[in-house]
């Protein structure tokens, strides 16, 4: 019996592990957003387990893509067909789902990026270089410090009547400035709104510096859930900002789409079913003593055999898997 061919995408980031299941028309059949909590291997296993249990009957996984900072790890664990960087994945997801989009503002757990789309392709991009002020983990931390759930953070900002000005250049200074404004007696709403404005200002002056931000503007990544930041973007840019339905898993969607494109070029998937995820994955790291660089090499093994290695500068240890993937998709 021929089942419905579906594509799996994984985005393993610093803060969250996201999984999506797409059909051939790129409709999202299933999605999971899980916290990484510093245990990517366990969380990927957990996510795969959840995906397996909730997958619609009769589906056949025809291809798998992995992205995010943990893409090598995830790719090796699930035998992904495509292992791609976050920028290409995010760009791809928007190109396929939001026709007319020309700018992507993406703010994730620990990095933020801007991606420009022109004529159906990614034409330029930038990532935050020096500082993680304004990314998800910083907001998380501030919400915790103020004692409000992160989910309510944005809504509170919208209630502000006269936002205070917060120094947003650096996370540490922003925090001390916030404390200072609290001591002065400013209202919580105004401080939060001020923080949103500072983060947006920082983003536009740093990541977005010199980039031509044209409509339609799409705002995605975990932070896009924050109404306050979205509104501040709209105020600063003087334009409407679109937050897509699946804003929190766009990277995973892009990875799944890339997997589909590769399979369509005539490759057969390397994915060997959900069973293999149950095997015991162990990661260990060691320092290579081949030269004075003493690279930290990470080795992932399952059932006693080495699945992949990465982290070496010279390529002596790394499996060629990731690189081959790249060459293939360009071919």
């Amino acid at each position: 019996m021929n089942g419905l061919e579906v594509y799996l995408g994984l985005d393993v980031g610093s803060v969250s592990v996201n999984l999506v299941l797409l059909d051939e028309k790129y409709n999202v059949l299933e999605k999971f957003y899980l916290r990484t909590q510093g245990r990517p291997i366990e969380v990927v296993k957990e996510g795969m387990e959840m995906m397996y249990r909730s997958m619609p009957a009769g589906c056949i996984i025809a291809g798998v893509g992995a992205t995010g900072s943990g893409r090598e790890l995830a790719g090796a664990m699930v035998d992904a067909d495509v292992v791609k960087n976050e920028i290409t994945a995010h760009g791809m997801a928007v190109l396929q789902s939001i026709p007319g989009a020309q700018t992507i503002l993406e703010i994730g757990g620990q990095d933020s990026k801007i991606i420009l789309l022109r004529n159906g392709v990614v034409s330029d991009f930038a990532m935050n270089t020096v500082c993680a002020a304004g990314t998800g983990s910083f907001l998380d931390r501030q919400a915790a410090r103020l004692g409000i759930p992160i989910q309510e953070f944005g809504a509170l900002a919208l209630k502000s009547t006269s936002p205070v000005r917060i120094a947003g250049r650096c996370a540490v200074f922003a925090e001390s400035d916030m404390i200072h404004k609290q001591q002065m007696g400013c209202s919580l709403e105004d401080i939060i709104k001020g923080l949103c404005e500072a983060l947006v200002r920082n983003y536009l002056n740093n990541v977005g510096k010199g980039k031509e931000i044209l409509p339609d503007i799409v705002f995605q990544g975990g932070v896009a859930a924050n109404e306050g930041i979205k509104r501040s973007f709209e105020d600063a840019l003087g334009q409407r900002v679109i937050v897509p339905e699946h804003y929190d898993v766009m990277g995973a969607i892009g990875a799944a789409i890339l997997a589909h494109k590769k399979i369509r070029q005539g490759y057969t998937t390397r994915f060997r079913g959900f069973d293999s995820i149950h095997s015991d994955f162990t990661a260990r790291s060691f320092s290579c003593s081949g030269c004075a660089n003493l690279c930290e090499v990470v080795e992932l093994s399952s059932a006693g055999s080495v699945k992949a290695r990465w982290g070496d500068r010279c390529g002596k240890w790394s499996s060629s898997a990731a690189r081959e993937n790249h060459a293939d998709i360009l071919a």
Partner: protein
Amino acid sequence: MTITFPHMGRMYIPVKALFDDLGVKVVVPPPVSKETLEIGTRLAPEMACLPMKINLGNYIQSMEKGADTIVLTGSCGPCRFGYYGVVEKEILKDNGYDADVVILDAPGREPQVLLNRIRKISGNSSWLKIARAFLQASKVVEQVDEFIDILLKKRPRELNKGETDRVQSKFEKEVLICKGSGETLEFIEEYKEKAAQIPERPGVQPLHIGIVGEIYTLIEPYVNLNIENKLGHLGAEVHRGITVTDWVKTHLSLDMIYKRERKKKLKKAENYLSLCIGGHAWETIAETVHYADMGLDGIIQVLPFGCMPEIVAESIIPTISRDKGVPAMTLTVDELTGEAGYMTRLEAFVDLLSQKKGRVYERS
């Protein structure tokens, strides 16, 4: 007297040949590594640029191997580099290292000072011998760059993955055994032959990427996280106009034809920058325009964190990129640069170029 010198890419090959020819004992610093950088970071002021930290690490590691005299070039201030020599000398002294630092910089009013210094590090060889040794060394410089050029072309086209890298690492390991320019030149010739014979996949049309920026960062692979090899593995042929050959021909030789060509190239920058503002900013802009006009697919600028001239260039490049329709990206490196983020950017940039060129990912 045992001489050592700072690393800058494969510059150690001609420099070693030079001192071998002069019959002077020379210690080649161990390849730049994390340890080199750690030593340098400890000794140098925190705000100093990355190359200086690596220089200092090179000296200390060489002194551990018996060097007592450090030779480096200086200049009358194209940028902070002009003061490296004197500052490094003081830093070594402050930290209790007893080394003789000989700075070769362009003579001002007293050419005799420079001549005396050259004479000194040459072990008092005759001027004829010195001239011949320098001439031979400049041949080595050119040959090494030609060899590297072959590798840049081969890497994206190689049939067997990693073969180009294997030839290169074998070369770098064995070249140090050569004694003198004669042997070195023969050895390079042999390896150029080997490199030329690396089998290619038929019909490969690699992307073409030009790399521009501060000279040291471009030339020293440790500092730029081996950008040439990384781009090669991602399927791109790398073009780099800033080479040691270029530097030698511009600053040390009397090759007037080359200098005229170089002036012509710099003139290409005139719509954007028409004078030297220090460092290699002018060259960076000129090279960017040149590569755009050549029709390369993309341009990457690499600079060490805090490099003033390159920061100016960085702000001009987007205008060139827009005018000429060529994608450009800037990468800043320092001792804190994480390799993962760097790789992500290179990968994404290569994806961007191939999408633009081949439209592999059509909207469906």
